[in-house]
């Protein structure tokens, strides 16, 4: 849960301070880089980008507050245009293009949007790996998820 809120926090609590720092940086850097290239409005948005949002939820501590900020910006755009809800593309073309034009300064386009999507999704999924590792270390007394002790071949044979 701690790692879900802040990458590396679970490792920190378990006493793996160095690994906590490494995990924090390796998850946070791609997340914030992706957000900088994608812009918060479309990158963390359940309406325009729901699959990306699902992947980003791996880092809930970043994604949930960003989602609220994204909604705030969306409301501000609608308020500026005097609308109550986003217009449908099939509706009046003038209203829809005015909405898109006003929204464009907060949106990213190719190639930035591609880079942002890949960075954000990767960061979310990497944090899932960090969460699993923290659980593994908590249950095994500090052993990592994929830990294999170097042992002579004979000892492996005797196990089977």
């Amino acid at each position, binding site marked *: 849960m701690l790692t879900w809120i802040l990458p590396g926090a679970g490792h920190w609590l378990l006493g793996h301070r*160095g*690994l906590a*720092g*490494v*995990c924090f*940086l*390796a*998850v946070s*850097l*791609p997340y*914030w*880089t992706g*957000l*900088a*290239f*994608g*812009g*918060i*409005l479309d990158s963390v948005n359940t309406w325009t980008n729901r699959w990306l949002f699902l992947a980003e939820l791996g880092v809930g501590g970043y994604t949930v507050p*960003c989602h609220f900020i994204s909604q705030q*910006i969306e409301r501000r755009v609608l308020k500026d245009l005097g609308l109550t809800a986003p217009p449908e593309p099939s509706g009046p073309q003038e209203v829809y293009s005015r909405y898109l034009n006003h929204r464009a*300064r*907060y*949106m*990213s386009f190719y*190639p*930035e949007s*591609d*880079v*942002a999507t*890949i*960075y954000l999704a*990767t*960061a979310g999924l*990497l944090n899932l*790996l*960090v969460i*699993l*590792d923290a659980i593994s270390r908590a249950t095994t007394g*500090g*052993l*990592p*998820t*994929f*830990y294999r002790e170097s042992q002579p071949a004979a000892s492996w044979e005797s196990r089977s």
Partner: protein
Amino acid sequence: MIGAVLGWLFVEPVKLPPGARMWMLLPLVACVATVYRATRARRPGEMPRATLITFVNIIVGMVLIAAAFYGVHWAVRRFW
């Protein structure tokens, strides 16, 4: 102040410098290699060499996959 900086950074998207798109692969692969190796290490001291090897493996693997796809693409256009 912090709000203004965060707003400047994340509200209006930053532009990617021209030609930088492919190079954006490198920091991402470095992060993937780091997290993967962190899940296998007991101490951070074990990580740098293993991370570097994983980083190089991923890059070489992706270059080979790209080359293979390019070869298939070329062959389809040439012989199909």
